[in-house]
């Protein structure tokens, strides 16, 4: 009974009641070009995604095919081609890496219109390894701490790739079910919505899991975009929801999304067994 009361009170005070809603989206029929791409300093085939917005929440992404895409800086021009294996994915035809002190421009030509964005890169930083923690009620682990969410300087995005497909006991499973990608952020801003943001799904993994931790250095413009992205996604619907508004963009001519250029630092680790 005591536990029952505690649950009630905590639900009242902290979580509130979350219920599934049957809500019709009042669509306006407008179509937008969405840009999703980050050029990095890593030498690899660089890519960006182009697609359209979708009417319903769970509609599949609508790739944008047939666009002409160019990325350039003061010295170089890269013409991206649409990946023959994945519609809407535009890739460089060679291995390239972004460089500091260069201003990059993205130019998209589609249906007789030009869309553009500009971005630049700031230096990356090395970082300490994340920490993980054993669950109280089983032998699995979860991410405990990645980085401070607030940092007046040096905003960053942390991409955590987790893979336990080769851990003994999991080899027979579909490898895709044993891989996850988590994102964390360090931002120079504080927001009401960030405080007591909604509960996030907990991703559990076994000892022996390989973790690749990648730090993307964000420019102030990129950090500002990420802030609004989180305000409308991960932080929305908590105790202090903010007034909804459209996520910012650095694209011109009504295109949405963001084109960024980031220095990436990474490290990898393997989850070793430990006590709680």
């Amino acid at each position, binding site marked *: 009974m005591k536990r029952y*009361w505690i*649950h009630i009170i*905590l639900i*009242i*005070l*902290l979580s*509130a*009641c979350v*219920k*599934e*809603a049957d*809500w019709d*989206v009042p*669509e306006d029929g407008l179509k*937008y070009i*969405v840009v999703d791409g980050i050029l990095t300093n890593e030498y690899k085939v660089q890519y960006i995604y182009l*697609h359209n*917005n*979708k*009417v319903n*929440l*769970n509609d599949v992404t609508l790739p944008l095919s047939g666009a002409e895409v160019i990325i350039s800086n003061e010295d170089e021009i890269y013409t991206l081609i649409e990946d023959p294996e994945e519609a809407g994915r535009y890739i460089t035809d060679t291995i390239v890496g972004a460089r500091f002190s260069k201003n990059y421009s993205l130019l998209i030509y589609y249906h007789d219109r030009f869309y553009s964005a500009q971005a630049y890169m700031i230096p990356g930083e090395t970082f300490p390894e994340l920490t993980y923690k054993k669950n109280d009620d089983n032998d699995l682990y979860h991410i405990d*701490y990645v980085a*401070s969410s*607030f940092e*007046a300087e040096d905003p960053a995005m*942390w991409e955590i*790739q987790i893979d336990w497909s080769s851990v003994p006991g999991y080899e027979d499973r579909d490898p*895709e079910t044993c891989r*996850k990608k*988590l*994102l*964390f952020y360090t931002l120079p*801003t*504080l*927001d*009401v919505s960030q*405080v007591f*943001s*909604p*509960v*996030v*799904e907990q*991703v559990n993994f076994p000892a022996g899991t390989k973790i690749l931790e990648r730090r993307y250095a964000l420019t102030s413009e990129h950090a500002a975009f990420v802030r609004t*992205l989180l*305000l*409308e996604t*991960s932080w929305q*619907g908590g*105790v*202090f*929801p*903010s*007034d*909804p*508004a*459209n996520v*910012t963009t650095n694209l011109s001519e009504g295109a*949405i*999304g963001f084109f960024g250029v980031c220095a990436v630092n990474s490290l990898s680790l393997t989850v070793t067994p430990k006590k709680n």
Partner: protein
Amino acid sequence: MCHTYVKSIVLSITVLLLSTVFIYSQDLSRKITIVADNIPLEEIIREIEEKGDLHFSYSPQSIPASLPISINAQDKSIKYILKKVFRKNGIKYDLVENHIVLRKPGFDPEQDYQADLASGKLFTISGYLKDRASGEVLIGAHVYEKESYEGTATNAYGFYSLTLPAGVHQIVFSFIGYEAVEMTVLLDRDKKLSPEMKESLMTMKEVEIIGRTDKPLFLNEQISEFRFSSKTLAKLPGITGDKDIIKSLQVVPGIESFGDGSSLFFVRGGSSDQNLILIDEVPLYNASHLFGFLSVISPDAISDMEVYKGDFPVKYGGRLSSVVDIKTKDGNMKRFGFGGNIGPYTSTLSVEGPIIREKSSFYLGGRISTLQWLPQLYYKDQEIKVGFFDLNAKLNFKLNDKNRLFGTFYIGNDLLERKTYSSIQTYGIGWNNVLGTLRWNHVFNKKLFSNTTFYVTRYQYLLYLSEDRKEYWKSSISNITLKTDFTWFLNPNNTFTAGMNISSHALDAGNINLNDNSEAGEIPNYNCMEYSFYAGNRQNVGSKITLRYGIRLPLWQDLGPTTVYYFDGNYDVIDTFDVEKNAVYSSYISLEPRINITYQLAPNHSIKAGYSRTTQFLNELNNSISPFTSLAVWVPSGPNIKPRKADQYSLGYFTSLINKKIKFSAETYYKHYYNYIDYAPHANMLYNPLIEGEIRPGEAWSYGLEMMFHKPFGRLTGWIGYTYSRIFAKTPGVNNGSPYRAFQDRPHNLTIFIAYDTKKRWSFSANWILLSGAAITTPVSFYDYNGYVVPIYGEKNNDRLPVYHRLDISVNFRLNKDEVARYKHNLILNLYNVYGRNNPYFLSFNRISDPEGDYVIPADHLHTQELVPTTLSVSEIIPSINYQFKF
């Protein structure tokens, strides 16, 4: 001759007394204590009147009023004292019912009295109205002459002054919830009457007011005003069984609740920071505990609460939408007592009593959340800490007949910490209010009353960034004020008020303190001075028209040291300016005329019309649409933020129905807001030196109709209220510059409140609220970005949440069989949201359903998961049972 005169008075008084409801009878053998050393006779007379519960009649010319008297009568009969004081000094006295008639041999009082009558000479009755049991003053009580209905009401300090022609008058004192007192007064000189009124048992009644048929309530009911007595407050159901003063407001037509668990409210479309909440005249900037589940002031400490929805009296200013004027208890001047409330969520305890009987008193009350230990039991690793406390103390000194001194202190503190699974390791929130006030009431003479107040108040909000709370973000607002008000009861037809105040404000718009006590950034602080002057009059014009008019003149100055940023049309910084200490860099002045007129159409029918202008210099910046009080940042008007102003026009109709048992009022209003504040999309409020650049000023307009049927008396009391209200805004840079409905636009609001006292020990109350859903912005489509599904919005506030409705019930059982028992205790069962209505306050499209069936934010950005629209609501049913006691 003298004998004839006395006989005629006796005859007159006897006839009049036949019709009285309450008569003081005198027993001169009763023992009292009078100790004086060379005190003027007039003062001795006053002391005997007060202690002996009797009244003197004399002509000032007939006795030596300034004659020094010395007497040491400890616990002696009144008769003995009269002999010692009067007979010894050659003054004769006769007892005529409750009057002691004084005369000096050789003086002809009848001739003098007849001369006064013939000349129509006016005399003034003045004094305080008090509760008989506690000595607490009664605010807003009526005092009137029974024949002519000339009358007045006690002011905020229980003082009244009524000027009438010489003669014998029947004076009625009435106050809701108290037995009316009717006294026969021979008005042959200025008199001081401070009767004590007895609380009526069970039913709330105001005997004389009900019975009156030929006059409205002195045309005294002010437009857009609502008063809660402590008795009414006690009847309203509360969310946790503890009565809640701020949530009580939500059942008043024209005042709309944000929703469950919220202390925020909107008055006639105004935003929540446009409400001025005063505790003993001191502004309170955040009136909530536990994010808004409870109000900061314990209801046990309240003696009176008055709410103005517009047409504020001129003494109030600084906010656009409403004034909630809360008066705390002075403390019992007659005996010690204690009281309290024990419940599952909060517990309160208060003690009060005289310091010197009848001269001074204290009140000390505290409340603590009783749920703070619960999370620790369940979450043994102490991941959640939650709790609050508040404490209020009051001292009250009656220095003499002309001077009273009050001191009030309040502190309230909230803390909530939660460790979450996310990149944010520990987050905690805390806020606190501290205020202190010193008030001095001075009666200059029978017609001139003054109150001078000095107060300090500080509110701060903290967001803890580290578990040890050494790193935190903090914003604060504080002010120091000296104010003085004068009330001049010129005659029954004119009551002048005038006053001024000087305030010094200091605001911190949110800085981060790091572990090493350094500040992480440079968010400019604000220092401001505010000067306000006002004057007004309540004037009766003939018997059918009452005018209230006045003017208020506030002046505002912003002073250094600070850094001022100047913005261009795109809100980019174009210049900065470092201001030196005490240098004025911005100032505003505003003229606020206010007038309202009441016209009696016919007996029991009146119409009222009003216009008022209000100005607000302090702005709470917050773009959260949470019903909970969140991290507030207060900034003043300055070079980038012009003062907000509002013009309000209102028109009302008042009548009484069914044998005057039900009051009906209907009121319509139109309000125009200038420099209405909205925000840039995703405005950054918490840690932003350029916060002023996030503001988008515009204009707004609201209009509505409020209707109310109110049954204030009898065993069954309550009201039914309906409000239709709209508010729209037009802001450059928001919604493409097109008009949009404001967030607080909720057109329909129906409230029903019923309270029933049985003849035995049970009492019941219930309220039901029906309210249009809040205006919200919903997506028109979505797009994918790096594993996120991002909403795209069209028009601002294009949609509405579902209709809000809720029923609350409270059942009170008196445990003491004897209603007038010394120890009173009750059990109170409270059911909040009885039928478990799910009233959402927000809608989002970003959750998945996890294997346990909980709705959570997806963490994996590699694989697509099915998202579901979800609504957030605070609670379904909240039961509580409280034990309340009073001794």
